[in-house]
């Protein structure tokens, strides 16, 4: 992940670099002003609001935020997988400079898996129980390529070996229920990388697994990334994983991006009050033992009834009650030359000590 010198496999000039230019690698995936709405009782509800992001080839972007902040929905939208009645209202999803969202459905289907792929949170339910894992990998290959069953099966065994399933020649005929959770996630990774996609989106890939397996799965993803130079999007709420694996970080709140930047920048100098509060709420081994852990007061807002100004304003120790925060939405992501940006009017002000209501 960081510091893997990768050859420029796809020498396409980045259209508008949003991520910091820490490496001279081309942008593999770029979201521009992506906006997704669902119909609600009082008109459409904007669940993803103007999200713009970029991931470089060979780079890892971590997307963090609370449950319901729109992390997963952002990338389901990017893949054209928003379930009806939701729909993407605005925005572009560019891969190597070409917008994929406005392609005909069949072309978009062929891009999924082949160019941009995704793995999901729960490996226990993400495999079909009635077919062997080999048959399921074969079907992925056959959905995209003209390939005979025998050749596809040989490829499936190769893929199982690549994701470090022991004894793949025998395990290829196992049913999902014969595998452990970690092994099933490996099988799903094998299916997702079967066609060597340039971008892999991992939606909380280890949330359902125990901690030791978690590290193995993420190391596997890092190894595969080093081999292939694919871009990785890691959707997570585990800031420890972000620190270990990410190059860049994007923080989401209520369907909006509140801060983006390189991992080092965001971790050492978090700007948005929400990001700062997030870091304060992590328990520290060297912190005071008898003090209560600071938590962010209040509840994440209902995206159907967001305040007119900043979505974080009611919980913010800096901006709560301030006229500008209450009435105007901060322009998305103003920032400096390093590419570290945040959406806040008052990011230079210190946090107030008083407890929120």
């Amino acid at each position: 992940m960081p510091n893997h010198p990768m050859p420029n496999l796809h020498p396409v000039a980045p259209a508008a670099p949003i991520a910091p230019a820490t490496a001279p690698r081309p942008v593999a995936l770029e979201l521009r002003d992506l906006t997704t709405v669902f119909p609600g009782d009082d008109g459409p509800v904007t669940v993803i609001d103007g999200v713009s992001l970029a991931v470089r080839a060979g780079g890892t972007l971590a997307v963090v935020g609370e449950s319901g902040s729109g992390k997963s929905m952002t990338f389901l939208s990017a893949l054209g997988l928003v379930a009806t009645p939701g729909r993407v209202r605005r925005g572009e999803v560019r891969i190597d400079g070409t917008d994929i969202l406005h392609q005909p459905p069949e072309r978009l289907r062929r891009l999924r898996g082949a160019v941009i792929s995704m793995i999901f949170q729960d490996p226990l339910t993400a495999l079909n129980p009635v077919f062997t894992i080999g048959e399921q990998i074969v079907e992925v290959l056959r959905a995209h390529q003209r390939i005979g069953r025998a050749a596809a099966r040989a490829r499936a065994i190769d893929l199982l070996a690549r994701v470090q399933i022991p004894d793949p020649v025998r395990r290829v005929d196992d049913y999902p229920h014969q595998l452990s959770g970690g092994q099933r996630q490996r099988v799903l990774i094998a299916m997702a990388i079967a066609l060597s996609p340039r971008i892999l989106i991992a939606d909380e890939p280890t949330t359902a697994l125990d901690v030791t397996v978690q590290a193995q799965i993420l190391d596997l993803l890092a190894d595969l990334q080093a081999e292939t130079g694919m871009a990785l999007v890691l959707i997570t709420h585990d800031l420890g994983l972000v620190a270990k694996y990410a190059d860049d970080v994007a923080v989401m709140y209520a369907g909006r991006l509140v801060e983006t930047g390189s991992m080092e920048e965001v971790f050492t100098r978090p700007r948005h009050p929400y990001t700062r509060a997030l870091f304060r709420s992590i328990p520290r081994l060297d912190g005071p033992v008898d003090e209560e852990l600071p938590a962010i007061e209040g509840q994440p807002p209902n995206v159907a009834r967001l305040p007119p100004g900043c979505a974080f304003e009611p919980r913010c120790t800096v901006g709560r009650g301030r006229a500008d925060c209450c009435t105007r939405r901060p322009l998305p992501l103003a920032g400096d030359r390093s590419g570290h940006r945040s959406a806040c009017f008052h990011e230079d002000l210190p946090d107030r000590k008083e407890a929120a209501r």
Partner: protein
Amino acid sequence: MRYFRHPGFLIGVILLTLLLIVAVAAPWIAPMSPLETDLANTLAPPSAAHLLGTDQFGRDVLSRLIWGTRISLQVAVAVMALSLSLGMVIGAVAGFFGGWVERVTVSIIDILLAFPGFLLALALVAARGSSLESVIIAVALAFTPRVAAVMRAVVLTIKPRTYVEASRAIGMGTMRLLFLHVVPNSLPPVIVVATVSAATAILAEAGLSFLGLGVQPPAPTWGNVIADGQSFLASNPLISLSAGICIAVMVVALNLLGDGLRDTLDPQMRRSSGRVL
């Protein structure tokens, strides 16, 4: 074979195999013609010549039952094939694609389900005239909405499963999702419905024949044999009783087969299955 470790399934398979052999070999194993009357020897009690006796026209009851197996099996297989193929397609399309297609289909299914199946079959036979084909078509059409309703309900539970979404996210097309994920995972409950409907189809054929609306006499069907024996229940109960037992055996065999298939087709139930008959 794991299937044969399931005692219910095993019994069902053995019974149905025996019935199938009887049906296929009817011309050779039946002691006499099912149609040959012997007016000198009507309503005879069981004897060496007539193991189950004779009916009011002196026909050999055992031979009529043996030939009747053919018709019953034919009805069961044909009804199952017709109602399954129609019902599964209709239910899968309605459940998987949703939208107005689903609303229209569900309305039609609900209207058809409002009629008792037997009444619907009765009306269809009355309209088409009674013959083996119209019995099959009528009973199959009466069962199709049931299969479709079950299929749609099952598809609705499968559609949102993670493996369907995960496959979509790696580029599987609609048809592949339908035939790889939706149809195989919907089979267990649909197979149970199908075997029950095959059993009910046999009952429906017998019922229609009994009422004189099914396969016309003198054709040897179990329903006709029951109808023939009905007037002599007090003096010669064996005629109706033996036909009734045939129907019961076939219905039980089909139900055992259905239960066994349901248990063995589901890989997660493979180890726990087969204890309860």
